[in-house]
């Protein structure tokens, strides 16, 4: 499966990355190189092999269903590029 400019445009949209029209072709070339590497996986015999997501097949710890975080809203909001009245500000979504 080869990636073309339209596919790059599609995945860039999914990844929320602005990509200029004139860069699409060169990015497609680079991604095809990486995917050629990934395509080596097609030769592996994986029938009946379960996917491995965690190296030690560890399950999550249980803990009491209690609040463990303190209220640090002010400290976190102070990091925001734009915030006012306890809220993060973004450009208008609805006109």
């Amino acid at each position: 499966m080869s990636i073309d400019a339209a596919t790059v445009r599609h995945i860039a949209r999914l990844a929320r990355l602005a990509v200029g029209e004139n860069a699409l072709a060169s990015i497609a070339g680079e991604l095809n190189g990486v995917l050629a590497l990934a395509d080596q996986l097609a030769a592996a015999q994986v029938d009946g092999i379960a996917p491995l997501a965690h190296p030690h097949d560890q399950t999550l710890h249980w803990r009491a269903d209690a609040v463990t975080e303190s209220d640090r809203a002010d400290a976190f909001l102070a990091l925001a590029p734009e915030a006012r009245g306890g809220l993060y500000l973004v450009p208008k979504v609805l006109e």
Partner: protein
Amino acid sequence: MSVSIAQLAQALRERKISATDLTRQAIDAAQQCADLNALITLDDTGALAAAERADRALAKNVGSTLVGIPFVHKDIFCTKGIRTTCASRMLADFVPPYDASVVEQLAGVQAVSIGKANMDEFAMGSSNENSFFGAVKNPWDAARVPGGSSGGSAALVAAGIVPFATGTDTGGSIRQPAAFCGITGLKPTYGRVSRFGMIAYASSLDCGGVLARSAEDCAHVLTAMAGHDARDATSTNAPVDDYVSALTKPLAGLRIGVAREYLGAGIDAGIGAVVQAALKQYEKLGATLVDISLPNAALAIPAYYVIAPAEASSNLARYDGVRYGHRCTDPTSLEDLYTRTRAEGFGAEVQRRILVGTYALSAGYYDAYYLRAQRVRRLIASDFTDAFKTVDVIAGPTTPTVAFKLGEKSADPLAMYAADVNTVAVNLAGLPAISLPAGFSEGLPVGLQLIAPAFAEARLLNAAHQFQLATDWHARMPEGVA
């Protein structure tokens, strides 16, 4: 500073030197070696205050071996009140409101952080050329890379500026720069060191660890870093071994597996010769060499370069220009805010991995790429499980070549990825591994990698320490630096 951490600790306790003097020396050395570009942020004020506190503890004769020992953190660990950039424009002005667990642990034993080390952006790279703050130079040859992604950490230790540095290893990012810079680098078992406050790249692979001159030094630092942390859901609740006591065990009877796949085509002849000589040294120390095979080794790079980008594309979705980090100017819409902020904030390699990962996880390709890579991941892990039925550790070269020249591979991502050929499988299997200096080829350091079963860090450190008692490769230092 070819002095060990234990020797420094003794000098501090005998008042031959103060923590403040030691810290001042490290800061001066860092400033003299500014050309290496190994530090992103020097925190001299914080360091001298911490050193003063350490001196007070030393006056009362309390605390562990690390009290008053200067070091640096890789700039991937969040430090409260000190900017943490991950070598990205995205986080160039980010000042975390909290400390990573590793930062708390090392501050808790009163080691003295002098600053934050340069690295590949978001730990994606094998040369430290993917840094928003510029490439780091190898102290052995300023025209060469120090390796990556923990390149700043490795260069600072190799140049003798600090006795140890923290690092992280997702596909080789501690071991490969340790090998390129002639120092010792330990990647612990996945889950042994907390990931809390360690900026995420690929969460099922990311692992904090240590770069130092010797295995003995690594043992002292790992002792402070290892352990369970309820704030990291993947942290393992298993007892922490006594790494320092385990160092002295003789190696008689140790079975070393020599994986033929790690010494095959693609490995420079000079590297192969150094590794063979190191294996002979191990035989002299009483170890037995066993020829083994890891049949799926060649699939490690393809599996890694699907799984790691997939996890990265998900982890890095958080950088949206809304809550923290870079934001583009005058966004015209929310979509414009997201896409332009991310295109401006991330460098080329990070964007490449986000795109590859997004593609591998997208509808229609998930099964063929991500799910298949996870199945291959189990095959690779099983190879190790099978091998460890007959051997105690597995040995081979850490890298296929010595440190390459700056710019040599930066235009070719695939050539760069190939630098990880012997290291990524260890991360896929979640195992501990160490790279230790084993000699020189073309006048540059060569690393020997030892791999052990999960949670056998004590065995690795023991095997590396015994080798270092019999050799002096780890004590060699480049000329003309601190």
